[in-house]
Every structure is written in C-alpha cells, then in structure tokens.
C-alpha cells in the first residue's frame, strides 16, 4: 500500500485563540487500526473534531491529505462523502427526524441523485446491522438521538458507521460511559468492518476497548502532539502504569490549565 489513506503533517489547531494541537503528525494506511491514547485535555478530541471540520476549531498550520485530496480545502459534507466518518463523543439530538429517514438521506447523499438506495435493500441492511448491535426495532423510528441514553447514542454512532461504510472511521472516545456488554457490542460492530478498504483511528482514554479491538499501532498524545508510538503492548503498559511513568521517561512537565474537551 503506497499511498496512505490519511496523512497529517504538522497540524496545529486552536479554539478561541488557544492552541491545543501543536504540530501533530500521523500516517494511516488502508486496513490499519490506530489508537491514540493520552491524558485528558491533550487535544485528542480536538484533533478528531478538527479533522471532521467542526466550526469551532481553527486550523492555524499544517496539511492533511485524505485519499490523495487536500482535506482542509473540503467542506464538512464533502469530507464525509469522500469517505470520512467521525463517531462523536457527544452526538447531537435532532428532534422530529427519524433515525431511519436520516440514515437513508445520508446514504443517498453519498450515492448521488438517480442512484438512491432501493427501500427494501435499505430496510434489510438496517435490520441486519441493528440486530448485530443488539438494537431493538424501535430505534429505527425514534427521533435521531432524542432521549437516547449515553450508551444508546454511542451504539447509534456505530450503526451509522456500519450503514455508511466509510473508508476512514474516527472514533472519539466511543468507550466512555459504556458498560462491558455495550463495549463488546461496539467492538463487534467495528471488527465487522475490518477490510483492506477500511481504516480506523480510535481515540480512547482507557485501554479496555483495545482488548476487544486489537490496534495495529498505538500512539500516545500529550500536550498537543504524539510523544511516542508502539504496538498493542504500549497500551497495556499504560494501563498498568498510568501516564506518569511515561511522562517521567520522556521528561514531560505538566502544563498549567489543560483544556477539557467538548465536542
């Protein structure tokens, strides 16, 4: 695989004038699963949101290439149609729009006018994916995320992932607030997507999810950039020692007033 699916070069991201991501570099190739771990406030969610094009975040420097295209030149919806997906930490609630209408609209946006997905095919696929994720039938007709518990929202993000079949899925702390059973279901969904055409960037605070989705590479993010990378064993080490051990080893001082991330 010559060309990486995603190439991030010296990315700097700020919010309200404050720089959070400070010179981030990463390459992801087709079929790879990468995990980014790190203490709270180091810019993990900021990175994810900025890649998707969240209006509050400002790219102050750097370049991002997605499937050979300049990502930063693209609008949010263009990035999505090009094959990027972000499973959000705090998904929005949209009253009055059913989950199934929304999914069908999103799928058809990708397929284009004149090539809409036939209804029966859509229903069949939706039923199949919902069953795999242990989601009851009523989720199709409930309004998008309205009144969903935290766990239900996360499951709904994975349902969207499975229905939209992106080339690159970024999972922003998909495991936070999930019990072990919900976690396993989420992992099942992601693992079902594995293929040379599918890459994944898992942002997580805890190592637990990585017991169920084995990453190819693990990176640690601190103070806005990657400070070290390794294989799955790096995650296990962090689980055992916490981040302090690593900080000492790398000579990293705690920064004043790290920012709490919110999508």
């Amino acid at each position, binding site marked *: 695989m010559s060309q990486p699916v995603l190439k991030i070069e010296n990315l700097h991201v700020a919010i309200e004038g404050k720089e959070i991501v400070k010179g981030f570099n990463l390459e992801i190739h087709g079929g790879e699963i990468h995990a980014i771990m790190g203490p709270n406030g180091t810019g993990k969610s900021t990175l994810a949101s900025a890649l*998707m*094009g*969240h*209006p509050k975040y400002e790219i102050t420097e750097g370049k991002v290439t997605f499937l050979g295209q300049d990502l930063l030149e693209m*609008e*949010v*919806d263009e*990035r*999505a*149609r090009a094959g990027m*997906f*972000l499973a*959000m930490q705090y*998904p*929005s609630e*949209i*009253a*009055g*729009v059913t989950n199934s*209408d*929304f999914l069908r*609209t*999103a799928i058809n*946006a*990708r397929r284009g006018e004149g090539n809409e997905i036939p209804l029966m095919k859509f229903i069949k696929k939706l039923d199949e994916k919902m069953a795999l994720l242990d989601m009851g039938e009523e989720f199709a007709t409930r*309004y*998008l995320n309205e009144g969903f518990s935290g766990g239900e929202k996360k499951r709904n993000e994975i349902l*969207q992932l499975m229905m*939209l079949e992106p080339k690159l899925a970024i999972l922003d702390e998909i495991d936070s607030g999930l019990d072990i059973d919900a976690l396993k279901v989420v992992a099942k969904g992601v693992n079902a997507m594995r293929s040379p055409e599918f890459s994944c960037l898992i942002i997580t605070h805890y190592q637990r999810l990585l017991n169920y989705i084995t990453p190819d590479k693990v990176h640690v993010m601190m103070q806005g950039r990657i400070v070290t990378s390794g294989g799955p064993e790096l995650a296990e080490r962090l689980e055992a020692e916490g981040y302090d051990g690593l900080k000492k080893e790398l000579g990293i001082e705690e920064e004043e007033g790290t920012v709490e991330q919110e999508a």
Partner: protein
Amino acid sequence: MATEMKDLHYDTSYLESFSGRRGEPDWFLDLRKKGLELAQTLPLPKPEKTRIIGWNFTQFEHELPTRTVDAVADLPESVRSLIGQGEQSGNLLVLHNGSTAYAALSEDLKAKGVIFTDLATALRDYGDLVKKYYFSKAAKLDAHKLTALNAALVNSGLFLYVPKNVDIEVPLQAVFWLDHDNGGLINHVIIATEANSSVTYVENYLSTTNSGQAVANIITEVYVGENARVQFGGVEYLSSDVTTFINRRGYVGRDGNLQWALGQMNDGDLITETYSELAGDGSSVDTKAVSIGRGTQKQNFVNRIKHYGKNSTSNMLIHGVQREEAQAIFNGITKIEHGASKSDGEQTQRVLMLSSKARGDANPILLIDEDDVVAGHAASVGRIDPIQLYYLMSRGIPKNEAERLIIHGFLEPVVSQLPIEGVKEQLAAVIEGKVQ
C-alpha cells in the same frame, strides 16, 4: 385607534334577501342583523404588537358561484389529493365557495344519529339543535367587529353533531375551498359532542385564487361533552391574496378531552386565536400548532387556555418558522382561574429564524389565580443550531438538505398527529414549498 373600517357593501335588506333565499330560520336572520349593527360600532380586535389597521376584512364578494361534483374523482387535483383513502374517505364534506360540492356520510353513522352537514342545510333540517350551540358558550357574537361580521355575513359552514355514547373511529374530513378572486369566505364551524362520545375531525382550507384581495373570516366552536373526546386536526393554506381572521374556540366539559393539531400555512396576513376553556373538573386540552411565515406576510398567533375546572390539565406546543421578511408574534397565554385547584398548565413556544430580516417574538404568559397548581412555560427564538447542522453534514448530507431536515423535524409534532395520510402528505408538501 383600531376602529376604522372601510364601508361594508351589505346592508339589512341585503341580509334579509340572502337569508330568505336560503330558507334560514328567523332567529338566525335576527342574529345576522344584530351582527351587522354591532359590526358598525364594535372595534377591531387588538392583537398585541401587530398593527391591523388597513387590513382588508370588509371588501369582498359575498354570494359566490358554486358547483357540485358526483364523485371525488371529479374534484381538481389540489383538492382530491387531500382526501383520505379507503376507510378514511367515507365521511367527507367538500365546500366550494361556501356550498356543498360533495358530501358523504356512512349509513352506519347516520343510523347512530351523527349529523355532518354544511351549515345552511343544518339550519333548515336541525335548526333547534344548531341554535343550542351557535355563538353560545365557546364564542361570543359581540366580542369585536370581526365576530359580529361573521354573524352578519356567514356564507359557509359546517355542523357536526355526535350523540351521547357514540364512538366514531374513522376520521371525518372537511375541505373548505375558496375559488373566487376577491371572494369572502365567512365560515362558521360547529362541532358538538354529547357525553361519552368521541370523534376525530380534520379540516383543510385552501384557495385557488390569484389576484385581488380575498377575505377569510372563520369562527369554529367545539363543544366537548362530559367525558367526551375530540381530536381536531386542521391545515390551512390560503394564498397570499387572502387576509385571514381565524378563531377556533373549544369549550370542554367535565372529564372531557380536546386535542388540537394545527398546521397554519397561509401565505397572506393572518390574525388567529386558538382558545380552549377548561370548564369542567378533570377536563384537559392539548394544543399543537406549527406555522411558517415567508415573503412579507404578517401573522399574529394567540394560543390561549383558561382553566376553570379543578384537576384540569393543559399543554401547548407552538413551533413557528420565520423566513425572508415575514413577521410574526406568538402569544401563549395560560390562565388558571381561582378555584381551579390541582390544575396543571404547561406551554412551550419555539420560533426558528431562517433570516436576519424576519421577525418572530414569542411571549409566554402565565396568569395564575390559584395556589394549589402547577404551571410551566418555555419560549425560545433562535437560528438553526450550527452544531446540529455540522452533525448532519458530517454524515455527508449537504448543507441545504441538512437545513431542510432540521426544519421538517421542527414542524413534525403536528405533521405526525394528523390522522389522514393525504392531509399529512399535503402538509409536508406545503412545508417543503414554503421553505424553498
């Protein structure tokens, strides 16, 4: 001073002639004359923050040409598409310029004593029954100039009567179709239900007029008997050349329940009030209304509920979309009178602004004269949430499509409540047209 009115073209002798030709009872002609007299002296209503001086409520043609059809299939597409299918189509009244163009009522309902007919026919065949309800408790003839005008010149209407203990499971549908430039649709609807009965009624107002200035003056009285249930659905989309006054009023008896689901999609200037009086103990009302303002139309919406009965409950959900240079005022008034203990009155009004030149004011008002009650209100005016937009766009949905989804979602509370598919689809199509 809201007392100016352009001279009305109709006088007492005109009324006598009109009433005579229709074979109306004497008491009805007397009310017409009384209305005409009061219309000269009573002031126009004074909707808050909306200037209605100069709005045309009095210049219109009164006796309009009408026609009948033998079958629903003979109606024009714009009307036909509204009609329910299958079992939802057997109970229907289509009024063209005020007169019945098509009417159907199932034998089963007739046998049960249900009356569903245009007002003119009801006055001839069931005069005494109509008299019991017409401008009685729900609406007052002398409230202001426009109610008086309604009494004086009513040329269209409907009478729906449900005897006690009759439960009607299929919806009854009415279409009021104005099809004459400069026409006046002076309409009066009465729905009266006796104890323990239930009915679902859906009405549509549409106009196929183009130029000139038409007028719609509509008063609706809904009487909910003891322990009775009325589900009232209404979709209006009168064109921009129609100035509209529409006043819907419910009077709910002990343990009665009234539900309003209204899609107010007119394109002309509008003053409207939806009023419910919770007269009996244990009575309840649920009002859901959605509207869209566009162009330069001015609209004033009053949703008012008064609690008199103990243990009465009310809920109001009002969602309005304002675009281009439209202006609208939304007043939500919940009043709990002294003595209506253990009542619960809730209201929510939300206005979605789609342009910086549009105007939308939401005024929540709670007037509480009793201690042992619960009440709550919420009002918001705002733009489409950019984070919601971002969420939808992040799934590949283009921006204008995402906005469309959000707007339809915002108006969904009423669309989903309407029991007839044709009406639901038509409302969704009208919404689509008004937000383009």
